[in-house]
């Protein structure tokens, strides 16, 4: 194949690469983001300000990052994997030292221009680092205990730092993403089953380490009526909003729960509830269908790649993306405790949007260069 020949020589022109971008998926991403714009317009009471306009700008910047990332060859990502991970780790330590505190947790680092949340960055760099690690590791060594340890260390370092902030949600997310990569790399089932048993056994121990507010969240989740005007208020009002939306919803800008401010955080974490209140079950399922299509595309891209680095990286990004959606939607529907996880591409918020778009940039880079191969050893082309 001609293309294959060209790709192997690594001589795709910029125009060729742009042509190779999956524009259908770009449209899909745009559609999901557009749902966000529409809901933010409604949340502001029928105004593009203050949320929808800024979100559009961020999305524009995100698209730019995506396109730039997509042009970069996988081997460069492979090279950058460890340094990027190291950089993110340093930033996490910097947060520990000089971070600003918001909402009772130190998560932000003020770079004057933008407020950076290093834990967000870590979600991508951890995937990069682990993918690189397993890329170079021989298949038969994946299940060797000695070679499992470095992978666990890659996960544990940022998780411990994030837990200290404290940010239980992100720590769990990072852990799950890392474990997923190890799982996909082909770790023996014996380990997986053993880890599962150990994990269940560890729940009481983890409980001891939880902060009181975190425990309270779990209690409130188990019984929202415990504190209907306090911590359970979010869950209760969100369920009322969702349920009252019914099948067809109350209509655009007609959501009483959201517009009369009964629904908290309607433009950020609880935006899915607002969508479901105004557009009903149909609206909610439509958005879920868009997410499913995106995730399906991610899996297909991953399976089709010719190198373990790309496969694991794409799959890890997919798991990350999935977790965002699942945790957010499950949370607003009262299935899991309230944790601060935004709905990707839809919730108002700069940091998350840029990280998600950067992730799609990496994904698209793999897709554009899907016919290339990467040698396993340290030798780089």
């Amino acid at each position, binding site marked *: 194949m001609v293309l294959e020949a060209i790709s192997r020589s690594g001589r795709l022109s910029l125009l060729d690469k742009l042509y190779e971008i999956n524009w259908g998926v770009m449209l899909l991403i745009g559609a999901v983001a557009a749902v966000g714009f529409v809901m933010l317009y409604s949340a502001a009471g029928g105004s593009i300000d203050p949320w929808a306009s800024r979100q559009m700008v961020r999305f524009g910047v995100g698209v730019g990052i995506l396109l730039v990332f997509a042009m970069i060859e996988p081997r460069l990502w492979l090279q950058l994997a460890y340094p990027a991970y190291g950089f993110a780790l340093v930033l996490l330590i910097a947060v520990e030292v000089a971070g600003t505190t918001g909402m009772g947790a130190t998560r932000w680092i003020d770079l004057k221009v933008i407020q950076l949340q290093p834990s967000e960055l870590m979600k991508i760099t951890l995937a990069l680092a682990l993918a690189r690690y397993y890329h170079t590791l021989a298949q038969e060594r994946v299940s060797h205990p000695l070679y499992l340890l470095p992978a666990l260390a890659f996960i544990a370092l940022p998780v411990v730092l994030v837990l200290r902030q404290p940010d239980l949600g992100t720590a769990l997310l990072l852990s799950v993403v890392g474990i997923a990569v190890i*799982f996909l790399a*082909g770790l023996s089932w014996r380990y997986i089953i053993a880890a599962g048993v150990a994990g269940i056994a560890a729940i009481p121990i983890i409980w001891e380490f939880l902060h009181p507010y975190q425990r309270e969240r779990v209690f409130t989740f188990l019984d929202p009526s415990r504190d209907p005007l306090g911590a359970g208020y979010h869950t209760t009002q969100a369920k009322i909003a*969702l*349920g*009252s939306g019914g099948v067809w919803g109350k209509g655009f800008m007609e959501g009483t*729960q959201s517009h009369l401010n009964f629904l908290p955080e309607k433009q950020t974490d609880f935006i899915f509830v607002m969508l479901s209140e105004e557009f009903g079950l149909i609206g909610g399922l439509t958005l*879920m269908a868009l997410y499913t299509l995106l995730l399906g595309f991610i899996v297909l891209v991953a399976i089709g790649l010719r190198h373990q680095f790309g496969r694991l990286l794409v799959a890890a990004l997919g798991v990350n993306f*999935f977790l965002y959606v*699942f945790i957010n939607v499950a949370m607003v529907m009262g299935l899991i405790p309230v944790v601060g996880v935004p709905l990707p591409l839809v919730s108002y918020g700069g940091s998350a949007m840029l990280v998600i778009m950067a992730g799609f940039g990496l994904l698209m880079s793999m897709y554009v260069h899907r016919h290339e191969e990467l040698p396993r050893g340290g030798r780089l082309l």
Partner: protein
Amino acid sequence: MALDDRDQHKQNAFSRRAAILGGGQLALFAVLAGRMYYLQVIESQQYEILAEENRVNVRLLPPLRGEIVDRFGEKLASNRQNFRVVLIPEQTDDVAATLDRLGEIVPITQRTRNRVLKDARQKRGFVPQTVAENLDWQTFAEVNIHTPNLPGLQPEVGDTRHYPYGEDLAHVVGYVAAVSDKDLDGEDDPLLQLPGFRVGRSGVERLLEHDLRGRAGNSRVEVNAYGRVIRELAKVPGTPGEEAVLTLDMDIQRYATERVRGESASVVVMDVTTGELVAIVSAPGFDPNLFNVGLTQSQWDALTKDALNPLVNKTLAGQYPPGSTYKMIIALAALEAGTVSPEHLVTCRGKVSLGSHAFHCWKRGGHGPMDMVRAIQQSCNVYFYDIGRRVGIDKIEEMSRRFGLGTQVAVDMAGEKPGLVPSRGWKRATTGVSWQQGETLNAAIGQGYVLTTPIQLATMAARMANGGKAVRPWLVRSVGGRARPVPQAESLNIAPEHLAVIQQGMDAVVNVPRGTAYRSRLPLEGVAMAGKTGTALVRRITLEERARGVLKNDQLPWKFRDHGLFVGYGPVSDPRYAICVIVDHGGGGSSAAAPVAKDVMTRVLTRDPMRLAAYQQRPAGGGGNSGDVSASAAALSGQG
């Protein structure tokens, strides 16, 4: 294909694991979809209700309270506009400064000021606080003009209860006041929870509370999570309370009130056949409007410490010894029991002795020989000591009860005291001592244990006037246009000839010279009033004082003076109205009470000229019995 086998192997392994992971993700998404279906389809209705409850707030609209009018439609209790000023704290930057500026127009007490400032801090900024109310039109207009300079202040017009006759009717109509915890017991009308709502606290206002109150309307408003009203969704106006028509004639009521102004007195006028109350005056009154607005401590103190007891409705709750007005009961008891005949003669020598105790007549020298009619006419105590002792306390008690004494007689008035008709059983039960004959003698002149209320005495007079029918006084003619059933008066089964003797005696009291109320006969041609005076002692006359000469009332401090009583009816020929007048510590019945009764009865009988003419055309006109009494008087003097 240039992929090496190792990578092929890796790729296959990855694909299997990726499929497992992808499947897991799909399954979890399916769980989410299931949850969405559960919330939005299965449980949807329940959440719809909850969302509506969140969003919609029902505000009560108080109904207009029903008016109370007299028999001619004259308004006795109505509603008037209440001009008030409310403050919405969030509309002003500086609540204190706004209050200062308002203070230049409307005086604001320090208490109000502190309350408003406190509420403004503690409550949500859009909750209106009442700053001043019941303003007069002038002041209200001034506030209206200045509203541009008074940020946050809003002039408002509400409704409030108004009593045009003020204290003249306070006891009958009653008043409304703020809801108390007691009112909330067993009541679930949400209106009671409304701030500023008023309920009837006494009189007709209390008796007919449920009819007068009306039904609350409501306004459904949409509110946001903080309770601020976004818009009104629907409005259902309330149903105003029903109009109550009383049997009162405001003209008579006002006249009687004016007649006893300055005194502590009661006047009751009732229809002898129907029992309708024409006037029911307890003086002095109090201004019921004050209770609606809320009394100040000094106003309250002034009312409670007033020696004239303005807060007590004396017509119902004032219990007085009936004095000589009780003598008709003794006479009837004796006649009905067959103990004496009307012709029975007793010679009055000024006193009688019972054991070591002397019982005196009011006339020191004695009345000489007395028959029943003359004894009533001149109110001879010795005559009634005699027949009272003959008939005994049991018959007296029985007759008292037949005429409504000792029980609550009013059909539809609250707060009535039962009075007291003593009996052997009562004495033994309360004091443990058996009945003494001397006590019968005391009872025979309406002293001692006997207690009656003005409304009972009026009822007694009515039953004597109407030929012995058990009429009962009532006040509410109709509510909401529906007439109240007129209570049917049963016969008391008293021989007409016996009643005729009593009526003859009462006629003589007023219309024959030497009658105790002769000076108070009506100044009308052909129409007369019959009656009986009474004097209730409030102190004991000691032997010593009697020896020195009984002190005249004007020599005594006010509170030791006798109560003056008068019961009567008119016109004599065709009795239609019964009257009872009691002037507390007014002195004797003939000097204090009878003149009031004369004036009020004159007013009653001349109120309708057509009717007056009808009374006058009766062949047996007023004073028709006077001839007989003169004859018997002549006969007696011949004997004496």
